[in-house]
């Protein structure tokens, strides 16, 4: 049972009265998905209906306008599986900056001539982890088997589940659509995107990110950035700075893996 707030997914599902989605689907206001799904889950519980409330929402609908509701659903441990597909900007409205847009990236509201976005990307998955949600994971569209396993695992767990899914946007990031999987894979291979999961108190890295814990195994960040027009204006100094930021993120994740490892 799917709830979708305003997003690209509102469009790609197809035009009414028909639908391209083979499951029950409720379109809902931008900021409301986590709360609507909570209501659906509670109704199913009271009515004795066997079914799962699932949210499929973008980064703007989750990390920005819908964040209060997402945080509250996690704090209540509402029985909702929440998938945030992250294309790092408001793509449906035409590429505007969100809190998930990475530093220095061009968007229509962070022009390249002014240096792109000035601020860091918000690490929503770690924030959800800090809520004490029973299951939190990151995923990436280039690794569908990992995503499939995570969705299946999340569906077994009662309570709030959060999956942060990395999803490149060809027009928004300025690359040819044929490179979508390549861009997503490079994000992992350069260490920019880290696959991990927190399940029942245990935090662990997932392959193939596991090997990139060793910095020497990571590919240079430039290989990821150069595929995308949104980073075309970056200087070597800025790229070096972003690599340092990636090192810091790895440091945090490895510490968590150590602290909450088996």
């Amino acid at each position, binding site marked *: *049972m799917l*709830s979708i707030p305003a997003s690209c997914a*509102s*469009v790609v*599902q*197809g*035009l*009414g*009265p*028909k*639908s391209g*989605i*083979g*499951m*029950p*689907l*409720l*379109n*809902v*206001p931008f*900021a*409301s998905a*986590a*709360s*609507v*799904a*909570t*209501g*659906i889950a*509670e*109704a*199913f*519980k*009271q*009515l004795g*209906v*066997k*079914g*799962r*409330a699932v949210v499929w929402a973008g980064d703007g609908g989750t990390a920005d306008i819908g964040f*209060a*509701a997402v*945080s*509250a659903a996690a704090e*209540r441990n*509402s029985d909702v599986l929440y998938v945030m597909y992250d294309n790092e900007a408001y793509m449906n409205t035409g590429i505007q900056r969100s809190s998930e847009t990475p530093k220095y990236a061009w968007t229509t509201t962070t022009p390249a001539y002014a240096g792109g976005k000035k601020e860091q990307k918000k690490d929503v998955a770690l924030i959800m982890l800090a809520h004490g949600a029973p299951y939190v994971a990151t995923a990436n569209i280039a690794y569908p088997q990992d995503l499939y396993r995570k969705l299946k695992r999340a569906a077994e767990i009662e309570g709030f589940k959060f999956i942060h899914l990395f999803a490149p946007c060809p027009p928004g990031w300025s690359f040819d659509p044929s490179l979508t999987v390549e861009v997503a894979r490079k994000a992992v291979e350069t260490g920019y995107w880290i696959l991990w999961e927190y399940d029942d108190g245990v935090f662990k890295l997932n392959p193939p990110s596991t090997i990139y814990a060793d910095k020497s195994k990571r590919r240079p960040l430039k290989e990821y950035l150069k595929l995308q027009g949104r980073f075309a204006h970056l200087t070597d100094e800025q790229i070096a700075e972003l690599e340092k930021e990636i090192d810091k993120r790895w440091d945090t994740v490895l510490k968590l893996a150590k602290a909450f490892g088996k």
Partner: protein
Amino acid sequence: MRQLASLKTALTGNYAVAYAVKMAKPHVIAAYPITPQTTIVEKLSEFVAKGELRASFVNVESEFSALATVYGASMAGARAFTATSSHGLFYMYEMLWWAAGSRAPIVMAVVTRTVGPPWNIHDEHNDILAIRDSGWAVAMASSVQEAFDLTVQAFRLAEKAYIPVAVGLDGFVLSHTVETLELPPQELVDEFLPPRSPNAPMPLRPGLPLTFGNIPSDDRIHAEHLKRIYWAHQEAKKAIKEIDAEYGKLLGRSYGGLVERRWLEDAKYAVVCMGAWCGDAEAAVESLRREGVPVGLMRLRFIRPFPDEEVAELEAAEKVVVFDRDITPAGGVLGREVASVLGRDKVVDVVAGIAGVDFKASDFKAAFRKALEAEKGVVLI
């Protein structure tokens, strides 16, 4: 008549609503605190915690989420309730339209309160009147007993017409004022209000791949949908009268449908008002009649759907004085709505009691005389 005794007791308006909700047996309640609504959801949380009401009680982080939560529950086939006031109601604004546009049969209590700035928790009707075009049915109680009765009736109406229903009651004047009332036996409420049919008309169910609310392939589909909401409201007028009459037969009280009438048969002048202060208006009208003034009273129980036909009955009166406990840059809301039926020459709109300023029966009398002198337009007290 069956021998099922009502319980005669005394409650605040808010507790009366809470008891009505309990007896309506909702599946999901979402709550966010705001004065003067809060004691409704406090009482309901107590009922749920003590096991007297089997329902999910969801504490949310905002009124927007309160309505979003009961919206999701309602779309999944549950009977669902929430309550709010003033700023909370306005924080829900987007969801109000979405819920009505989805034809979700939600019931919500609106305990009326001024809108800031400045911060002021006292009574005024601007908040509930501001949602009148959202697609919700909007009603106002005038007593603690009616707050109870209207809440029970609201679930029947919502689930029959597939229109969400806002049940208004005046902040503090009703919400925190203890009056006597009769609580009907649960059996009779059950008979009046059977459980919501879980399958009507198109619930969200696993395995049933229905999509709600996606982009229409043709804007005319959306236009037809909007027209149906208009027609649903027109048809709801009949349902409101039938439900009120049936409630009277089964539970012993009915109020006349969309309006309540007093002394209108021979009235040269008519007073129109809504909400708790109609009790004071009635006392003023009674006093005027004793003085030989042929005046009657029409109390609006519903403002959506608007009782056009009932208000048109006042054509026979020489002058109609509408009391608005609200103010907009264009005057009082009810004054303009009544004038849209009767014409501007017949109607004087008295704006009074705004910002929670006390307004007594004697004030009604004085304002009535002032209104007759004004002949038409807006009189600000």
